[in-house]
């Protein structure tokens, strides 16, 4: 059922895009420009749970590319791409190997941390100043909250989507 899968993935990509756009209107008051809460991780985590790592990576990359086409901002493209890809990879690893220990909330906590580290890494390269990592503690504190809600939302979403049962 390749077509069905493709349609579901494009729907997820569209949702991730919309969430990112909404998220963009709430820039964090502190810290580095372009730093986001990472709420669009909900969609990436849902994709990861339902379709696996490769699909999640595809959605993450597509989301970032399309977001760049919509907003026209190259700077936020790198932020978005590195943050999304890094958090997708980390979440996949945690989800695959530590999932009975950590629930989806734990997985998304790691995802939020990876998202922040990825963004700061981009900022470090752009500004050529490693001291930008001073922002990591603040971002981590915010990430703990957003990660919790991302995990909680993904829990509900996947539960209901699995019940629908037409995912493959």
């Amino acid at each position: 059922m390749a077509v069905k899968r493709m349609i579901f993935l494009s729907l997820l990509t569209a949702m991730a895009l919309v969430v990112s756009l909404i998220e963009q209107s709430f820039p964090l008051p502190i810290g580095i420009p372009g730093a986001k809460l990472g709420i669009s991780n909900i969609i990436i985590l849902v994709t990861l749970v339902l379709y696996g790592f490769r699909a999640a990576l595809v959605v993450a990359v597509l989301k970032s590319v399309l977001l760049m086409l919509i907003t026209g901002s190259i700077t936020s493209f790198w932020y978005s791409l590195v943050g999304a890809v890094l958090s997708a990879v980390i979440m996949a690893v945690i989800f695959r190997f530590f999932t009975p220990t950590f629930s989806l909330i734990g997985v998304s906590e790691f995802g939020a941390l990876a998202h922040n580290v990825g963004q700061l890494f981009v900022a470090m390269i752009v500004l050529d100043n490693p001291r930008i990592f001073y922002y990591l503690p603040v971002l981590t504190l915010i990430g703990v909250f957003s990660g919790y809600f991302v995990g909680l939302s993904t829990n509900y979403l996947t539960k209901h989507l699995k019940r629908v049962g037409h995912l493959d």
Partner: protein
Amino acid sequence: MTKADKGLIFVFVVLSAACLIYLAAMGLMNRDAQRYVSVQVNGKEVQHIPLDASSDGKHFLIQSEFGRNVLSITGDAVEMFEASCPDQLCIRQGRIDKVGQMLVCLPNRTLVEIKGRTDAPDSQSTDTNIGRH
């Protein structure tokens, strides 16, 4: 939510809080030291402004191939006054007055940082004070 989740959240919160307290303490210790404002564009220091009476109430222009920013110094606090970037996030970052604090304008690749004299001086430093305007 499992036990491990709670532990993880606890570790994250404690670690970042500890780092924040440590950074704040470092900033306080350097408070009395001679401080200066380091303006970096694309990783290179382009301006080196002492943070004292000589810079009080003045504006400083940061012009580069990436864009234009105007920095405002009042008392011992620094803030971004004007920016050519579309998002204006550097202005929203408000005023900074502690060593180690930064104002960042990523579209213009501009970073404004308060440093103490104890830090190793950067090799390049040209003063381009444009005075009051």
